[in-house]
Structure formats: structure tokens, C-alpha cells
């Protein structure tokens, strides 16, 4: 599925060209167009509401990217990823609020960017801790050990100890102006949007690059058959733990990014349901596809918002519909997963692949 056919008449004559990011001028053109849409088109037409929807898509995509890496590429099923988002968010928040930053770093607006990086490292290491059982267990048993991450991290460590720092109990306030990158104070949906786009692009590129490397091939080998992978000389435990680290790292960035969109942070922001939701995102988007992560995130956020929009006109006649929307939403989430499992188990990414190939091979698409 990962192979995309080149447009008719395109042939590669060396490996360098075959492995190039953008293999044809047409693809390069598409990418430039996408960047223009992302950096100029959307910000100039979207109102704060739609920008907040975009930010939610970005947050979902960043969270789901780590889940995709673990489940889709390394075969390690996880149901506790919200915990690593929480670790990232709390590490970044604590560093901003409590760490005695040198004045020069504060003046340069580097505290938040540095805190994102540290948060990612901490979340990565924390994720490795909960990945350790993967050396011994897999399948359902691994699901349970990853679920433990949620309860130990959010419900115990963060709630009982981390949240108590500073004496307020539970919610850390992030006063306006706290989140700053260089001279820019991140204080509007638009600024959060730009930050989100940059992070999503950087991390997606990083993951795609990793997957093209020896590490990525080892992960895929482990996913396909861990015993065969070991026979081939892959250090299975080491690569699994590295996958947990990278997934946690990305989760940490997602959590640290999300605080830019909040004015306060509490354990309630990271419920276990969110881990389940992220798995739903990759199931709908397509397991084993980076594109799928993005498509799944867009689907899960935008479709739910559009459903909401569809309900609004009916609310004038049936006001209770608005209140009942959450039931509709939950049902739509469950229904979407069932429908994709039955009718399109490869997810939206497979549809995208089919559509793209149809046009690439046109008019000889047989």
C-alpha cells in the first residue's frame, strides 16, 4: 500500500531518484500548493472558530502520530497514549512556571521552545518505562500494561504529586503572555495555528524519514513477525523500546503544544478516553500509514463538527437535538469505526492511494 505508482511515463534510473522525497516536478508543485494553502490560504479565510477546529485537528494528529508509529509500524498496541501527552504538557508547564530561567533566555523568548524539547525527552523516557513490558508480553497483555500508563501517570503521579506543586491543587494557570516563542506571544488562535502547522510538518517529516531508514525497516519487520525479525538479527527489544521512545517524544511535543491553546491545565485534560480516541483516529485513517494519521484526524474532528453544524438548523424546531448531539457524536464515532472495519479496513489512506493512482495512471489505469 505504501507504494504509489508514478505518473505514466515516469521511470527512475537510480536509487537516489527512487528515494527522493519529491520525485517529480508535479509532486513538488502539489507540495508547494499545499504549503500555500496551509500557510496563506487557511489563515486568511478561516475565522477563529475554524482555526480552533484546525488546531484541534493538529493536536489530534500529533497525538495520533505516536500511536500510529507504535501500532501501525511497530505492531505494539497502546491504549494509554494520553498519559504521554500529559507528561509533555505538565513538563512544559512546570518548566515555564517554576524553572529559574536565566534572564537572557526569557528575554529571547526561548523558555517555551526549550521546554517543548525537554518535555518531549521526558515523555519519551516515560513512555519507554511503560514499553519495557513489551520485551516480555504482546497483544492483549501489552494493551493492559499501556493502559496502566494512564492510571499511574495521570491518576496517580500527576494528580497526587505533580498537581500539588505550588499549593493550588490540580489546575495550573498559564497567565496570558506566558507562552512565547522568540518575540511572539502565542495568544491567538492564528498564532497557535501557525505553531501547530510547523510542528505537524516537522514531526511528520521526521517520522517519514525514520520509516525510510534502517530503524523504520526494523520496526516494520517486528510488526510483521517479531520472531522472523529476531532471526534476521534485529535486536527486537531495543527497537521496540526505541519505538516507544519516539512515540512518547511525539506525544510530549503534542502535550507541550496543547498548553499554548489553554489558559489552565489539569489532569481532566488527559482522560483515558483520549487514548481510545487516538486509536480510533488511526483505525479510520488507516493503520500503517502516516497519511492515514492526518486523514483520520481531519475526519474525526471535521466530521464531528459538520455533524454539529447539520444539527443546528434543526435546533430551531427541536431544541433538544443540540443537547442530544453528544449522543449522536458518540454513536457516529462508534459507527464510523465499525463501518471502516467492515467496508474499508485499510482506512481513508487506502482510498487516497486508490484515487491518486487512478489519476497518476490515467488514461492507462488498467
Amino acid at each position, binding site marked *: 500500500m505504501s507504494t504509489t505508482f508514478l505518473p505514466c511515463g515516469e521511470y527512475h534510473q537510480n536509487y537516489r531518484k527512487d528515494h527522493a522525497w519529491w520525485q517529480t516536478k508535479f509532486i513538488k508543485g502539489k507540495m508547494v500548493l499545499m504549503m500555500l494553502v496551509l500557510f496563506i490560504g487557511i489563515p486568511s479565510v478561516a475565522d477563529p472558530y475554524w482555526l480552533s477546529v484546525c488546531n484541534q485537528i493538529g493536536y489530534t494528529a500529533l497525538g495520533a502520530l505516536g500511536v500510529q508509529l507504535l501500532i501501525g509500524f511497530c505492531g505494539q498496541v497502546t491504549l494509554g497514549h494520553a498519559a504521554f501527552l500529559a507528561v509533555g504538557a505538565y513538563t512544559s508547564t512546570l518548566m515555564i512556571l517554576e524553572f529559574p530561567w536565566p534572564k537572557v533566555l526569557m528575554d529571547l523568548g526561548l523558555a517555551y521552545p526549550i521546554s517543548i524539547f525537554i518535555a518531549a525527552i521526558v515523555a519519551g523516557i516515560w513512555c519507554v518505562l511503560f514499553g519495557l513490558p513489551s520485551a516480555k508480553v504482546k497483544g492483549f497483555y501489552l494493551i493492559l500494561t499501556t493502559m496502566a500508563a494512564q492510571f499511574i501517570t495521570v491518576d496517580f503521579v500527576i494528580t*497526587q504529586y505533580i498537581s500539588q506543586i505550588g499549593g*493550588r491543587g490540580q489546575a495550573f494557570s498559564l497567565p496570558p503572555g506566558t507562552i512565547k516563542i522568540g518575540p511572539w506571544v502565542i495568544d491567538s488562535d492564528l498564532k497557535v495555528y501557525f505553531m501547530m502547522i510547523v510542528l505537524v510538518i516537522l514531526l511528520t517529516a521526521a517520522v517519514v524519514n525514520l520509516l525510510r531508514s534502517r530503524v523504520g525497516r526494523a520496526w516494520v519487520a517486528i510488526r510483521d513477525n517479531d520472531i522472523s525479525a529476531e532471526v534476521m538479527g534485529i535486536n527486537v527489544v531495543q527497537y521496540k523500546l526505541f519505538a516507544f521512545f519516539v512515540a512518547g517524544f511525539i506525544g510530549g511535543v503534542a502535550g507541550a503544544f496543547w498548553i499554548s*491553546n489553554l489558559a489552565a491545565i489539569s489532569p481532566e485534560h488527559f482522560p483515558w478516553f483520549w487514548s481510545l480516541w487516538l486509536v480510533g483516529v488511526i483505525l479510520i485513517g488507516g493503520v500503517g500509514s502516516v497519511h492515514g494519521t492526518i486523514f483520520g484526524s481531519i475526519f474525526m474532528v471535521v466530521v464531528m463538527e459538520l455533524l454539529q453544524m447539520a444539527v*443546528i438548523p434543526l435546533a430551531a424546531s427541536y431544541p433538544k437535538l443540540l*443537547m442530544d448531539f*453528544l449522543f449522536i457524536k458518540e454513536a457516529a464515532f462508534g459507527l464510523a469505526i465499525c463501518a471502516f472495519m467492515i467496508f474499508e479496513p485499510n482506512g481513508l489512506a487506502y482510498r487516497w492511494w486508490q484515487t491518486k493512482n487512478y489519476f497518476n495512471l490515467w488514461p492507462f489505469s488498467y
Partner: protein
Amino acid sequence: MKAKVLVVVFAIMVAVGVCSMASAAEVVVGALNDMTGATSDVGKDYALGVAEAINYCNDNGGVNGKPIKLIQFDYGYRVPEALTKYKLFQRMKAVAIEGWGTGDTEALAPTVTADKMPYVSASYSGHLADPKKTPYNLFAATDYSTNARATLTAWFDKRWPKHADFGKRKPRFACSYQASSPYASAPIKAIKDQATLLGFDIGPDQDVSLVAIDTKSQILAMKDFKPDVVWHGNTTMSVSATLRDAYALGLGADHIINLWGFDENLPRLAEKAAEGAMAATVNAFYGENTPMMPKVVEYAKKFNPGVPQEKRLSRTIQGWSNVLALWEAMKRADKAGDLTGEGILKKGFETMQEFDLGLGGAKLTYTSTDHRVSGKVPVYEYKDGKFQLVQVTDLKGRWPDKWQSWLGW
């Protein structure tokens, strides 16, 4: 073919929804409620109350002739959901919002301040009562911290002197609540400060989930400390489970409860274990004799006839209180020709002095320096099958030197 028709209908509905805006003659009010989440045991009734009260306002002229359009969403107590819904309210030109939980209300507080959006919440967190920090956060009730101090003081005044150990040792006090919930933990600092002030020994907290149905391990852990009184910070379902287990395991302590854990459902769920439980109340119970109660009952019957009257709770009244307070503020602001967020705050809420909603709650006074509506808190107990007044604790009168310093706790 049918699928295509459905897609077209859906697309049209989406287009209409995306383009829908308030007409000039309408005043849009957004409402975030929890009908399905962790606090839905009390949230459902509150949401019904909000909708019924808005109907009452519209039947009585709306905002000086302009009808109020209520956009009410269930967000399932999910904070990220609340953030998006807030943006949607803004997009729909809402002039004010009726909010719900402490987590999302506190998370949105700086945003509503920056947007100058009056946010009347069902979260009565004391942290939201300081206009210096959160000028646009309001509620028509005494705050959790004030209530917690008042209830502990009432227990100290009325129950402790009757205890066999009175005069021989300090009373022992412990807290039971979901530590991860900003709602449940909001008054912890205040109630422990009050316990220290009154000379209690304070035991370790017990972490009890908002959706707990079994709390035996927490009760057993509490028994080691032998508390004389336990403060419960969760909502009714969880509190009643805790009370039942405390009764079954013979904890032997009295119970004082935050107001969202103390309503008509408590004795139904906890039965004998609820006997003697105390709490500060911010309104009358459903059906009690207050000037506005006949209207509350009339509108409940009219708009939600499917919900039996005996199932309605004091949460309905809390919904009404917040709506009526906002309605009054909007009418005053509109009369002053300034129906904006700032107008609703400055020319509406902050002009109210001892304003009585007629729902059995405290008379509302908001000033530009203090959004705590009152220093006097009625404390009730459940005794002999009914809710009875224990005392009105006058915190402001009793500790005048400390009252101001307690603002924003």
C-alpha cells in the same frame, strides 16, 4: 440513489448550519452543559432548568423586547470539547454564556476575560470570584470555598459541643474527593484553612472518583484516623456511595458535603446513611415555598412533562438562578444602551445590590472588586426525612478581618 439524496440533504443542512447567525432582533446566549459525562448525575437537571428558565424569560419580554436565543450543548465534561464549543458560541454571536464545570470554566477564564464575554458558570469555584483575575466569571451563588468554610463552622458550632469528647481533645477532620477534579478540589485549601482556624486535627485526604460506586478501601483507610467529620467534595452519586460504605463499615463520623453532592437524590441513594448529612445550600430545594417556585414548577411541567416532578432536583433551581441573574444583568445593560460583554458586567451585574431572585438563595451583590455574592451562607442538614436549616453562618460578620483576604481562594 438514496445515499446520494442523504448526502445532499446533509450538505444543505451543514451549509445552513455554517451560515446560521443570530438575527439582529435576537440575543444569543450559549450554554455548556453536562448531560452524559462524569457530573451528569447533577448536570441533567441543571440543563433542564437552564432551558426552562430561558423560556420563562422569553415569555416575559426577553431582554426588553428582544427574544433570547439559547444555544445549548452537552459537552460531556470534556475540557477540549468545551474550548471548541466556546469558539462556536462566539461565531454565533453569543453575548454571554451559561457554563458548567470548574475545569473548563477555569481553563476558559483568561479567554473570556480577553474576549469580555460574561461567563455565568455552574462552577462556583472561589478562584473565579476575584474580579482582579477573572472579571467576566460570575455565578448567582455563594462560592465553594465560602460554602465549605460555612459548613465546617456550622458543624463545629452545632455538632461538636454535643460530642462526648468535646473539651477533651481537638475534633478530627478529613476530606474525601476526586483529587484530579478541579471542581472537587477547588475549596480544599479554604476548608483546611478553616479547619486550622477552628482548631481541628486534619487527617489524610481520600481520593474518591466522581463515578465511584465502591469506596470501601477509602473508608477503611479513613478509619485509621477516626475522623469526627468528613467533608465530601464529589457529586451526589459518588457521595452517596461513600456515605453508604461509611455507614456499612461503621466509620462513625458526621458528613459535610459540597453542594453538588447534596440534593433530593442523596437520601434516595444513600437512605439511612444520609441521615444527619450537612451542606451549604445556595437555593431552595425543588418545590419549596419561595416566590418564584410556582413558575419553576409550571415551566418544568410545561416544557419537560416527560420528567416526573418527584425526580426534579434543586439543580433545576440552580439553573434558574444563573439564568435569572444573567437575564437581569442583560436587561439593565440593554436599558443603559450597552448590551455588550462589558456592558452586561459593568452596567448589569455590578449594579446589583442585595438583588433577590426569589428562589430562596442569597441576595446577590456584585461589586467591581468582589464577585462573592454574599458572606452569609445557610447550612442545611438532612434529618428525619427532610432538609432542615441548621444555621446561617455569617462568615463576613464573624471574621471581618479575614473575609477580604479569603477572596479568590
